[in-house]
């Protein structure tokens, strides 16, 4: 029985989804919004189920219809509750505008895009029908019904393209009024035509490319299977032989390169030669290989090696040798020269940093004790004798730029699964992250105005999509999004106002963390004990074609997206924690970038060999070839290593969570990666060739020095300081993110101690929220222990000096985590860092871009210098080095180079010994004393947010004409006091807030916002007020304490030679008054600060 179902909100009720869509149209193009008088968003479902008409009628009513709020249309299947026609004409008749002029845009997924809602609906039919429907087809779509006499095809096309649809994953069609009044959409034959075919794409990127070398899709399976499709010919003249192999030895260098290009391999020429040398040398004399009947490389082998050596899997750039040259002719502003040669940025500056900082509480860190090709990854910290804390980071770019919602959701779920498969398995308690977005609007005033353009629809779309993706991933998994931010790249400080010709793209920097037992029986969480003979059991979503467009397919010009299946993810998560309790598996690995092949090679490293049978891998009916099964990056799958006698138990538990399993191989100690497809051997390689066989790159890096000093502008502090402050409070990097924070679940699990916002009088009409510095969550046990996390990111300083950017980012993250109660200074104080890079290179992998690499090296050195100075190990690392490519523009006419902005996001993670030590940033009470902790001598205006606001210029000032400078000796002293290493007064601090973007005045304003207190701020007479008020800095805080504690605190700080400055006292005036000596320098009331910071209606 075929059916089409339409569900629509009753005409007399508000339709929130339609309303929100209309609002998005309004924000992007108000002229088109004004053409719309009425709208409804209709859910559409196509069904093809082996059930009777009667069963269909009753099930459809039971499942789809909520009569309280909806009308249901099914053509003539079920008499409509609404009216005569059983279709949209009923609601058109009931609309407030009659007779109206109606249009509709209907969208549906492109073939092959996973539709998890349809899967859930089918499951619902199976529940009410009490049986399964193997051949059934279900698909979902949406129909946007609009009324407006002025609407036309061009405005509707704009709505479809810019707001309603994402044409990477959806197609849409337009219905006019007369078409809508016919009910032919419900006809059986029409429904049969309309249901998207299950997952049979006309061309997926990989197959498309294979087509070019002559591998027609029908032949792919055959070429590698038993029968043969005959010789296949491509443009390069490279043919696969009848058995699916390629004789690389016969190829010229050029032919080899063009073959690689056609196959979309991310390999340099040196890497290609290494592959050829292996197959014409070592492999030719390989007896094992001969025994398997293999000689020339198979397609599966070549693809496996190519993916394993691709940048996203192997992180080639962070492993390369880098030669650095300083072209500036000046002494290095870092105070020491950069190294001339670095043997791998990761090895020497990330892992190398942590190696110099042994800590009793480190359980495992990225890179430690593993061969050099193991890159990045997650770390584990011992919180006490029983509990390990796992922390991981991830950066996602291409999937986010092609589909912001799906890409963000997928990236966050991927990170969760990676942590869920760490050690015994991590129970996740928090995630967070930074959204990096291009081109914030420039605006100088406090209020939005005509010359203050709203963000482009492209940026809006990216941000809205990321929000939707993160909202889904957090609210549906119950892992709270506790800390994060948005980093806008505006014009680099010091640059002219010419817009950059490059089109910057969004990127997402995520972290996640959770807990696991340190020991189970005699096993330890960090050392999986794997044995040859352990079975490889796949669990989760069957492998499909949707995974053939993932992150490691970097060569593909247009990355596609794959949508997530959050229900399967959640079930996997429940499953993994259940088998952790039972202790029936040895190790798990999440199938992510690089797919099955890469994951299996990583597991195989631990026993020294692996053997796979690709024909056993569960497929979702796409008839994938062996190579495709090996490569597919289908999500929501994990691979377990299970002792043979436990396999059936694992399978039983999986069944309890309705998860398919497949037993597809075993670990060996043969030193080999062997794979067969049923009886046909398809891979027989030395495992170490896959893991370690790639030649090392040597890259050139250079640096031209810091940019020249900025231009000056004459500004009177008395007149201009407060307007500049109000402008800064509204700048996107500083302004309130409450609109976003409230739309993400940041309190799930009930563990929060410090939230992203502090709120005064919550739930009341006078409630107001201000920012906190970091997040604190309580451990879910009956102890007072907590975990804190803070973020540092200082992209603006990249244009000054990437070394400085990294130093500032580390310092900001550390200060943030100390503000909320982190510990520092004693050997047992748990405080650690993570690093997360996205870096553009103008040349593809292996090519040279000395300037950008010089910046990357300086950033790594800055990170290392700061981490060593503070003694903080790096416990998690991720990097994405991306070369420019044609923009993933939705408008094919726009050809631009798309890049990410160079960015480094640092997280600091700390233990908080007792939740009672946690602090928030708000000033608490009138009479409290306010202090600057640290010294104003180090405030700098170069690179500051104020400079960005003044389009690269700076107010003429005697001091502050420098960039911020670190003093790590001072930092250790100050942080040691704040972090509880010595002294007993730091717990008397009632508030603590760091001074970063915007400087001291912004920091003080943020503390005043929520409670609406006031203060008279004394600017020291010997200070330049611009530098003092707006300079940015290392190692400084604004703190407050009760007046009675002020004296003892000052004594303690003095005794320990910690610089501080009393700034004033809080009062009930509701005003911020600036004074320098007797001179009045300006006054502003708190409501004005609030409205500048909140910028209502700016984002939603």
């Amino acid at each position, binding site marked *: 029985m075929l059916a089409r179902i339409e569900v629509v909100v009753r005409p007399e009720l508000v339709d929130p989804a339609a309303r929100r869509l209309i609002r998005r149209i309004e924000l992007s193009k108000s002229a088109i919004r004004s053409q719309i008088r009425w709208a409804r968003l209709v859910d559409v479902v196509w069904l093809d189920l082996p059930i009777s008409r009667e069963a269909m009628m009753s099930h459809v009513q039971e499942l789809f219809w909520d009569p309280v709020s909806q009308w249901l249309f099914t053509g003539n299947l079920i008499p409509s509750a609404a009216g005569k026609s059983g279709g949209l004409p009923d609601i058109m008749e009931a609309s407030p505008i009659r007779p109206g002029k109606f249009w509709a845009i209907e969208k549906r997924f492109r073939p092959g895009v996973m539709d998890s809602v349809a899967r859930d*609906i089918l499951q619902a039919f199976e529940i009410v029908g009490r049986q399964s429907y193997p051949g059934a087809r279900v698909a979902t779509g949406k129909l946007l019904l609009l009324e407006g006499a002025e609407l036309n095809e061009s405005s509707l096309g704009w709505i479809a393209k810019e707001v309603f649809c994402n044409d990477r994953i959806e197609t849409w069609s337009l219905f006019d009024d007369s078409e809508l009044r016919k009910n032919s959409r419900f006809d059986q034959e029409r429904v049969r035509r309309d249901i998207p075919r299950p997952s049979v794409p006309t061309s997926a990127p990989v197959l498309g490319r294979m087509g070019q070398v002559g591998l027609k899709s029908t032949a792919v399976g055959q070429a590698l299977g038993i029968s043969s499709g005959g010789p296949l010919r491509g443009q390069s003249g490279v043919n696969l032989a009848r058995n699916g192999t390629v004789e690389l030895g016969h190829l010229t260098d050029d032919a080899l390169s063009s073959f690689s290009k056609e196959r979309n391999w991310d390999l340099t020429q040196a890497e290609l030669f290494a592959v050829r040398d292996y197959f014409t040398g070592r492999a030719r004399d390989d007896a094992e290989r001969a025994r398997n009947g293999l000689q020339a490389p198979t397609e599966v082998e070549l693809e496996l090696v190519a993916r394993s050596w691709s940048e996203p899997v192997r992180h080639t750039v962070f492993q390369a040798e880098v030669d650095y040259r300083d072209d500036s002719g000046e002494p290095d502003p870092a105070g020491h020269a950069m190294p001339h040669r670095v043997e791998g940025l990761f090895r020497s500056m990330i892992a190398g940093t942590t190696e110099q900082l042994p800590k009793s509480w480190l359980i495992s860190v990225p890179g430690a004790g593993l061969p050099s090709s193991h890159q990045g990854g997650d770390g584990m910290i011992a919180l006490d004798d029983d509990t390990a804390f796992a922390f991981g980071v991830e950066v996602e770019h291409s999937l986010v730029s092609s589909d912001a919602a799906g890409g963000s959701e997928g990236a966050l779920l991927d990170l969760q699964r990676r942590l869920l498969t760490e050690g015994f398995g991590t129970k996740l308690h928090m995630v967070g992250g930074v959204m990096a977005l291009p081109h914030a609007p420039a605006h100088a005033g406090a209020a939005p105005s005509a010359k203050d353009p709203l963000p482009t629809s492209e940026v809006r779309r990216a941000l809205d999509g990321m929000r939707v993706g993160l909202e889904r991933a957090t609210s549906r998994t119950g892992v709270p999004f506790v800390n994060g931010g948005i980093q806008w790249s505006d014009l680099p400080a010091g640059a002219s106002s010419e817009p950059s010709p490059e089109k910057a793209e969004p990127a997402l920097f995520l972290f996640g963390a959770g807990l696991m037992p340190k020991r189970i029986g005699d096993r330890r969480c960090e050392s999986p004990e794997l044995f040859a003979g352990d079975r490889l059991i796949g669990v989760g979503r069957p492998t499909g074609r949707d995974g053939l467009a993932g992150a490691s397919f970097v060569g593909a010009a247009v990355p596609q997206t794959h949508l997530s299946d959050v*229900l399967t993810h959640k*079930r996997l998560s*429940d499953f993994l924690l259940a088998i952790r309790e039972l202790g029936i598996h040895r190790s798990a690995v999440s199938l992510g970038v690089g797919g099955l092949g890469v994951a299996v090679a990583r597991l195989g490293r631990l026993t020294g060999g692996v053997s796979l049978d690709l024909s056993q891998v569960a497929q979702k009916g796409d008839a994938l070839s062996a190579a495709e099964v090996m490569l597919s990056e289908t999500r929501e799958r994990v691979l377990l290593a299970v002792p043979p006698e436990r396999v059936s138990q694992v399978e039983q538990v999986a069944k309890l969570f309705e998860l398919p399993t497949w037993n597809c191989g075993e670990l060996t100690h043969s030193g080999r990666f062997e794979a067969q497809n049923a009886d046909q051997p398809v891979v027989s390689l030395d495992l170490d060739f896959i893991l370690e066989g790639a030649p090392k790159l040597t890259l050139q890096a250079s640096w031209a020095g810091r940019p020249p000093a900025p231009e000056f502008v004459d500004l009177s502090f008395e007149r201009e300081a407060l307007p500049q402050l109000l402008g800064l409070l509204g700048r996107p990097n500083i302004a309130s993110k409450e609109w976003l924070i409230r739309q*993400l679940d940041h309190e*799930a699990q009930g563990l929060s101690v410090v939230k992203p916002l502090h709120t005064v009088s919550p739930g009341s009409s006078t409630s107001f929220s201000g920012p906190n510095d970091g997040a604190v969550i309580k451990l879910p046990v009956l102890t007072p222990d907590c975990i804190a996390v803070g973020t540092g990111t200082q992209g603006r300083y990249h244009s000054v000096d990437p070394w400085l950017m990294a130093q500032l980012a580390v310092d900001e993250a550390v200060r943030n985590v100390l503000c909320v109660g982190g510990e520092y200074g004693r050997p047992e104080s748990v405080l650690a860092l993570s690093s997360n890079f996205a870096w553009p290179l103008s040349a593809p992998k292996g090519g040279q871009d000395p300037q950008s690499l010089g910046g990357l090296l300086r950033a790594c050195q800055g990170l290392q210098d700061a981490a060593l100075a503070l003694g903080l190990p790096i416990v998690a690392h991720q990097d994405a080095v991306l070369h420019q490519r044609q923009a993933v523009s939705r408008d094919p006419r726009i050809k631009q180079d798309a890049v990410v902005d160079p960015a480094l996001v640092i997280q600091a993670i700390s233990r908080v010994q007792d939740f009672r030590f946690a602090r928030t940033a*708000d000033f608490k009470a009138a009479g409290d004393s306010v202090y600057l902790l640290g010294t104003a001598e180090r405030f700098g205006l170069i690179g500051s947010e104020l400079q960005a606001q003044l389009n690269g210029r700076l107010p003429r000032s005697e001091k502050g004409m420098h960039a911020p400078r670190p003093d790590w000796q001072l930092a250790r002293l100050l942080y040691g006091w704040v972090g509880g290493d010595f002294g007993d007064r730091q717990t008397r601090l009632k508030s603590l807030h760091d001074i970063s973007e915007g400087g001291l005045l912004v920091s003080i304003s943020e503390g005043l916002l929520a409670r609406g207190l006031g203060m008279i701020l004394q600017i020291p007479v010997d200070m330049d007020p611009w530098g003092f008020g707006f300079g940015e800095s290392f190692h400084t805080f604004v703190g407050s304490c009760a007046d009675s504690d002020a004296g003892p605190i000052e004594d303690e700080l003095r005794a320990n030679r910690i610089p501080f400055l009393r700034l004033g006292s809080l009062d009930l005036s509701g005003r911020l008054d600036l004074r320098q000596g007797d001179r009045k320098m300006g006054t502003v009331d708190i409501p004005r600060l609030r409205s500048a910071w909140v910028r209502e209606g700016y984002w939603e």
Partner: protein
Amino acid sequence: MPQRKPRVLVLSGDGIHGESETAHAFEIAGFDADIRTLNELMISRVTQEELTRRWSAFAIPGGATFSDTLGSGKIFALKFEHGLGWDLQKYADRGGLVLGIGNGFQILLRMNVFGTDLSLTTNEAGKFSNQWVRVIPNGARCIWLKGLGTLELPVRHAEGRLMILGLRRPEILSRMERQGMMCLTYEGGLHGSEREIAGICDPSGRIFGLMPHPEDYIRWSSHPEWTSATNRANSPGQGLSLFENAYHEAMRVL
């Protein structure tokens, strides 16, 4: 002699994710908690009899069951009804207590535990929202809210707007009022919910569903303003009192 503790059955699986903190809140209040997936209960064919015999209280925590497809709670409610067939009304009549929080409330509502022609639909603004609200207990019917004044609690949902079928609205409202079902309302309303309703109990007062999350406010230190009163840092949160009420009732019946 150690006193016998009442037990609570906390449901999990299929996208529920609040089971740990819900069980924890019951435990702090004095219960022993058992967390079970719906599939486990179905496979081991736990009957209504067993439910009544073994568990004084039954809770459906928050989450996003079946990814909220077809409306939040819908598919889970069907699976529960078709898979277990428990009659929660009868369970309550025989002394059981039932709590549905967030998605759990949506599930109870879709099982028509509070009568027909009610729905929890998309918030008026069409947005997911995580914020703290003030809620006011009304009347004396609901056992869970016995003796409580205004509470501050977090809400985190996209579908929390209570609606009543227009045609039968007066009749349903007067019945609910008469039976003391509208037991919890938002101060100042929220998301367009009918009569500012935040939670409903059945006429017996033993089955209670609410959108706010009491299990996430069992310590004062999870309140958004707790750092302004650190002298109370060790105090319990207001949400705990609901679970304590259940404990006293369960002990009375036990």
